[in-house]
C-alpha cells in the first residue's frame, strides 16, 4: 500500500460525521489476542515473531471479514511513515519505535480496521469509528475477531479468558475508548471534577498526546480499566452511560458560555482564527489549542464559512509527520513550525470568510 494515497483522506477518526460528533470525535475498540502455542513478546525469539506474522498474514488472507486488510512490514518502513501511521491512529507509538524485531500492521484503505502484529500481544485488533458508535465498533471487531479465530488458535483459559502478556488486559482483552472534545468543560473549569468522578468508577482518562488535566486541543480519551469479570456488553454499557452524562455536561457548559459570555468567547474564537491565519511560525500544540477554540466557535454558531471537517483536516495535516509528507521531505522543528504556519495561512485563505 502506498501511504501517500492516504494523505488526502481525513481518516476515520477525524471524519467528524458520526453520531454526537459535536462532542464525540471517535470511538475505538481494541482486542488483545495471543496464539496458544507461542511465547509472548518478552520470551519470543525473532523466529517466533516471524511465525506469528506468517500465521496472521495467512488468517488475514483467508478470512472474509479481513480480506481488505493489507499487511505492511514496520521495520522496513521509514521513520516518517511510521510516525504518519501513529498520527493516523492506525498503530501505537510502541509498534512504531518502542519495540524491535519482526512486526507489522494490516489495515484497510478506509482506515476503520487495523491489526497490529507483535505489539505487546501477538495480535492487537482495532476498529475505529467516527463519532459515538460503540455498538457498531463492537459488531465490526467481533466479526473480525471471529474471522481470524476461525483460522488461528487463540490462547484462552476457561477461568481467565483470553490470555494476554500483561494481566491488566486479560479476560476480554478489550479496551474501548471514546475520544471527546471538551472545550467548554475546560473553559468553565469543570474538567477536573469530571476526571475525579471517572476515576472513582474505574475509567481511565488521557489526552491525545499526553497527560495532565488539560489535554492538547481539549481532546480526551475515556476508556475502561477492567477487562476481567465483566462481559464485553457490560463494559460497553458502563462506558456508554458515562459518555452520555459527559455529553450533557459539555453541552450545558457550552450553553452557559453562550448565555453568559458570548462576546468574550466570540473574541477568543476570532483571535484564534486570526493567529492561525497570520502566524509565521506555530507549534503543533498551539495549533491544536487554537483549532479547539475554532471547533467550539463553529458549534456555538460564532463562525461561519468553516465546516468542522475542514477544521479536522487542518488538525491532522498540521501534525508533524503529515506536514513532512505534504512537503515531500523531512523538516526539522523550526522548519515544521514555519511550514505549519504557511499551510494554515493558505488553507484558511481558501476557506474564505468568517464572522
Amino acid at each position: 500500500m502506498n501511504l501517500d494515497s492516504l494523505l488526502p483522506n481525513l481518516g476515520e477518526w477525524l471524519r467528524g460525521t458520526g453520531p454526537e460528533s459535536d462532542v464525540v470525535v471517535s470511538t475505538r475498540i481494541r482486542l488483545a489476542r495471543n496464539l496458544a502455542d507461542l511465547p509472548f513478546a518478552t520470551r519470543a525469539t525473532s523466529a517466533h515473531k516471524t511465525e506469528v506474522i506468517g500465521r496472521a498474514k495467512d488468517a488475514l488472507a483467508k478470512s472474509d471479514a479481513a480480506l481488505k486488510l493489507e499487511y505492511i512490514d514496520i521495520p522496513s518502513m521509514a521513520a516518517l511513515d511510521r510516525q504518519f501511521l501513529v498520527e493516523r491512529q492506525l498503530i501505537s507509538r510502541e509498534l512504531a519505535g518502542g519495540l524491535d524485531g519482526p512486526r507489522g500492521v494490516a489495515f484497510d484503505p478506509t482506515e476503520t480496521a487495523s491489526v497490529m502484529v507483535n505489539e505487546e500481544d501477538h495480535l492487537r485488533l482495532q476498529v475505529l469509528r467516527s463519532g459515538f458508535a460503540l455498538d457498531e465498533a463492537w459488531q465490526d471487531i467481533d466479526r473480525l475477531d471471529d474471522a481470524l479465530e476461525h483460522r488461528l488458535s487463540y490462547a484462552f483459559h476457561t477461568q481467565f479468558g483470553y490470555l494476554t502478556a500483561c494481566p491488566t488486559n486479560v479476560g476480554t482483552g478489550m479496551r474501548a475508548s471514546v475520544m471527546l472534545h471538551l472545550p467548554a468543560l475546560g473553559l468553565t473549569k469543570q474538567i477536573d471534577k469530571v476526571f475525579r468522578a471517572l476515576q472513582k468508577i474505574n475509567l481511565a482518562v488521557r489526552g491525545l498526546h499526553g497527560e495532565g488535566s488539560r489535554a492538547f486541543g481539549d481532546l480526551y480519551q475515556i476508556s475502561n480499566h477492567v477487562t476481567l469479570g465483566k462481559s464485553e456488553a457490560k463494559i460497553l454499557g458502563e462506558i456508554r452511560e458515562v459518555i452520555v452524562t459527559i455529553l450533557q455536561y459539555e453541552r450545558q457548559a457550552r450553553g452557559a458560555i453562550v448565555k453568559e459570555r458570548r462576546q468574550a468567547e466570540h473574541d477568543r474564537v476570532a483571535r484564534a482564527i486570526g493567529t492561525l491565519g497570520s502566524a509565521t511560525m506555530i507549534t503543533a500544540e498551539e495549533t491544536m489549542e487554537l483549532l479547539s477554540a475554532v471547533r467550539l466557535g463553529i458549534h456555538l454558531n460564532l463562525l461561519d464559512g468553516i465546516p468542522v471537517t475542514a477544521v479536522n483536516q487542518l488538525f491532522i495535516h498540521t501534525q508533524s509527520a503529515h506536514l513532512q509528507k505534504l512537503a515531500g521531505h523531512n523538516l526539522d522543528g523550526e522548519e515544521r513550525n514555519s511550514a505549519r504556519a504557511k499551510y494554515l495561512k493558505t488553507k484558511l485563505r481558501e476557506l474564505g470568510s468568517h464572522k
Partner: protein
Amino acid sequence: MKCQTCDNPATVHLTDIVNKKKRELHLCETCARERNLIPEQPGPQIDLKALLSLLTTPHAPGSTGAEPRPEPVATACEICGMTVAEFKAAGRLGCPHDYESLRSTLEPLLERIHRSMAHAGKAPRAVRVRDWKKQMQVAVAAEDYEEAARLRDLIRRHEA
C-alpha cells in the same frame, strides 16, 4: 540551560551512545514533543510493578518497610522458564502457560486490578461449541427437547 532549537529553558535532557560516542540533546518540552521524544503517558493507571511488589513481598511483623526483604521463592514456568521475580521486574508474562504456573501470584493481582478472577465475556468458537454440547446433554437428560433442539441448531451453525 537553553533549548537547542529555541530559546526556552531546556527541561528534557537526553543522552545516547552511538559507536562509543556520547550524544546529548537538551530541549524544552514543546520541542521534545515535536520530535516525539516524550512518550505518550496514560493518565492515572495501575502501576503494575508497584502493585506486584506490594503483593509478592512478604510483610515481616514489625518491619518498617525500609529494610531489604528476601525475594519470594520463584516457581518457574515449565514451558518458558518465567519466574515470579522476572515477572515482577518486567511486569509482563512469558507465555500463556504462566497463568497456570504463576497462578498463586496472579490470582491476588487480578483480584486487585479487576476485582474479579473469573472471565465473563466472549469465548472462542470451539469453547462455545463445547459448552453448548454439555448444555445439550443436560437438556436431553431433563427431557427438555425444545432446548436441546435449539442448542443442536446452534452447534450445527457454528460447526459449519
